[in-house]
């Protein structure tokens, strides 16, 4: 794991393999990374907002659980983004297939499931108040 982290920070090692690609491919890879990073930043912003703008919820510590889940998800997305960027850059340089990943599907399912849970909670509360 430490080796992988060291590799992210060492551009020479990345440039040592394969041949330099058309610069537009590298820039497209960089923009994809930035789009993922902003996805992570949006999740972190959601967590920070939940921590300070949500009122205390009826279930004990539910607000903290929501905030921490969003924050950790955002951090994971950011770290995964740089790992995927490095593996894609390497594949482009070597002319290999781009790395496939389950992560977008997992993230989409997690966000969808979280949204469904919140919808259920809101509905349950609205019906309980009547």
């Amino acid at each position, binding site marked *: 794991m430490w080796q992988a982290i060291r590799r992210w920070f060492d551009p020479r090692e990345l440039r040592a393999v394969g041949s330099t690609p058309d610069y537009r491919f590298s820039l497209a890879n960089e923009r994809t990374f930035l789009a993922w990073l902003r996805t992570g930043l949006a999740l972190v912003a959601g967590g920070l907002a939940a921590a300070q703008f949500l009122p205390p919820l009826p279930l004990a510590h539910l607000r903290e659980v929501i905030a921490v889940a969003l*924050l950790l998800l955002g951090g994971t997305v950011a770290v995964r983004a740089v790992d995927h960027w490095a593996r894609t850059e390497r594949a482009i340089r070597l002319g290999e297939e781009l790395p496939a990943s389950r992560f977008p599907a997992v993230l989409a399912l997690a966000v969808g499931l979280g949204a469904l849970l919140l919808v259920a909670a809101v509905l349950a509360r609205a019906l309980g108040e009547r």
Partner: protein
Amino acid sequence: MTADRQPGKPADGPRPPAGGSGQPQRDPGLQPERTRLAWRRTALALTVIMILTVRLALTADPPPGDALGALVAGVAVLGWGATLAVCWRRATGAGPARTDGRSLPLVALATAGYALLGTVLATRGLW
């Protein structure tokens, strides 16, 4: 290796400049410009995160002025300055055509750092 890929050149061959003969050759797909703007958007998102972190640090349940809140707010502002410098170099630098390896992991680690700071702040009422 693939033969159709030449270093530093568009894969479908150079095209004539769009306007005037004195202008430098530019990529009709505007790839460097799009990448610069993507870095600017990222810097903007980072600024929002920094403001939210500072607000959470200084205005949450414990009375404002506690040492932890002040420390986290300071770290958030300093980290924002350093990360914004990295973003700005990529957003305005002369050589956007070359991805430098170090900017990307730095901004990713900064994002993970804000997630950690936020976790500390969000749970500080519990310990």
